[in-house]
């Protein structure tokens, strides 16, 4: 299993789907472990009834059907399917609406979905998802990208309320890939994924949504910066190590 994860870390991020299915066929006995530890780019389905897209993931799946957060119905329709309680569903609806605005503010487009369900510890789990296509042909406002995909998965476990406080554990995964193609720099592509966790004990006075929202915003911001400065920065450093820019190289005087 360690080795399988090691392999996944080294394969090109854009091939993670192929790598995962290859591993699933080699070691099917570990499939549930692999599937829970590895995230793949998100798929989307259209909920015709409400006219909106929703994101597919393990957390809104039952058998081969997926539950739309807009209509709360499974597509394709499913008998005896699982649903969140009506109270949780109310929170889920509110979360979807607010998260859509958050998404609009930061992503200027894209698709979002939130799913909630009760867990065994008298708390609940919420999954906030965002999928953005930032390419020229997608929702990229500035037209910089030939290709641009951002998938964010935030799974937050909320513990039972005790003395007006609750424990929140957030695990966020960002997967992204971007590519530009222009005259001077040719084909330039960066892709990757990172995952981090954040735990907090917060007062429930302003409501769970507020607390979860703030944590997600904070962690998403941190991950974005980390990807940009640390991760991409390291690759840039590596290029400069392989071939330092001209200014840093001692120039030999030309022979005549």
């Amino acid at each position, binding site marked *: 299993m*360690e*080795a399988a994860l090691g*392999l996944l*870390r*080294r*394969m090109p991020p854009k*091939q993670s789907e192929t*790598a995962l299915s290859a591993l*699933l*066929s*080699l070691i*099917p006995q570990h*499939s549930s472990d692999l599937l829970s530890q590895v995230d793949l780019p998100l798929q989307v389905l259209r909920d015709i009834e409400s006219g909106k897209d929703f994101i597919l993931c*393990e*957390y809104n799946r*039952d*058998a081969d059907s997926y539950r739309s957060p807009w209509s709360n119905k499974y597509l394709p329709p499913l008998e005896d399917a*699982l649903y969140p309680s009506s109270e949780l569903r109310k929170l889920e609806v509110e979360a979807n609406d*607010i998260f859509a*605005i958050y998404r609009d*503010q*930061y*992503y*200027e487009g894209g698709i979002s979905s939130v799913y909630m*369900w009760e867990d065994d510890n008298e708390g609940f789990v919420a999954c906030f998802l965002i999928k953005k296509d930032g390419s020229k042909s997608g929702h990229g406002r*500035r*037209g*910089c*990208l030939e290709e*641009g*995909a951002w998938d964010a998965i935030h799974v937050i476990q909320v513990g039972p309320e005790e003395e007006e406080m609750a424990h929140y554990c957030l695990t966020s995964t960002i997967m992204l890939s*971007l590519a530009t193609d222009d005259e*001077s*720099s*040719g*084909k330039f592509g*960066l892709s*990757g*994924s*990172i*995952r981090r966790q954040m735990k907090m004990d917060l007062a429930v006075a*302003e409501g769970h949504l507020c607390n979860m*929202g*703030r944590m997600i915003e904070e962690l*998403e911001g941190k991950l*974005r910066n980390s990807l*940009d*400065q640390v*991760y*991409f920065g*390291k*690759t*840039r450093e*590596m*290029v400069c*190590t*392989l*071939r330092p*820019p001209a200014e840093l*190289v001692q120039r030999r005087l030309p022979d005549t």
Partner: protein
Amino acid sequence: MAGEEDELPEETELSYDQKKEIAKWFLLNAPAGEINYVAKDLKAVLSDEEVYNEAAMEAFPVYNKSHMICLEMPSRDGDVIVSSYSEIAENEYIDPRTAQVAIVDHVKQICTKVRPANDEELPSLYIEEYRNALDAEIQRYVSESYPKGISAVNCVKGKDTEGPGSDFEFVVIITAMRLSPQNFCSGSWRSVWNIDFQDESQVLDIKGKLQVGAHYFEEGNVELDAKKDFQDSTIFQSADDCAIAIANIIRHHETEYLAALEVAYSKLPDNTFKDLRRKLPVTRTLFPWQNTLQFSLTREVEKELGLGK
């Protein structure tokens, strides 16, 4: 989870060949310099020596040639570059600079021995004059510009040409690799320049392909994949003059490309990345989670009035 146990997929045993193809896929997709780490993990996942060995025998040569790995020659004359341009036979690669042929073990990635190249494997004196001059100029450029670069010039067409009157073609390879496992980082630079000496037009047609890759994988996995094609030309002159002209052209394009890469990187945080996710909303403040009702009302009004961002 939605609450149900996942059903295990139906156990269809993979065939020997299927396993082998999968194993080869993993090996071939290893980032530069990391194939041995991939091999180790792969062996553990496969737990089948036979499949691994056969996959390795087939995958390593392809990987080694496409990454143009450099192997130290036991004769202590430097490194030989393993590439399709220097391949004489499946395990034999010529080093034109020292006129030796290296016998290599692809899977172990070492040069086991060398032998002198025979006359059929070497170019004619006329060609060698050009090749050698170019090789020297390229070496000089590489030693100036690449801390750990290695280069080679191979004649891939017309190597038996005795004198002026025919076309011939060289391939210049420049490769540099860095592996830093303790820093979870690796990178590679590969330049391949085709120099086509055209006798009739007395012109050298130059085509270059640069490929840069970098991989950083500390608590995450990020990869750079950049490439660019180049085209240039110069006039057919004496061996020394050609060498200098070609090296200058290569130096010029590669330096410019590096600068362009730097520009692409510097545009990332504020431009390119923004098309994916902004650092902050247009309001320049964090999202008002507690005031969202107000926010959505504003948004409705904005929409109705047709006010865009």
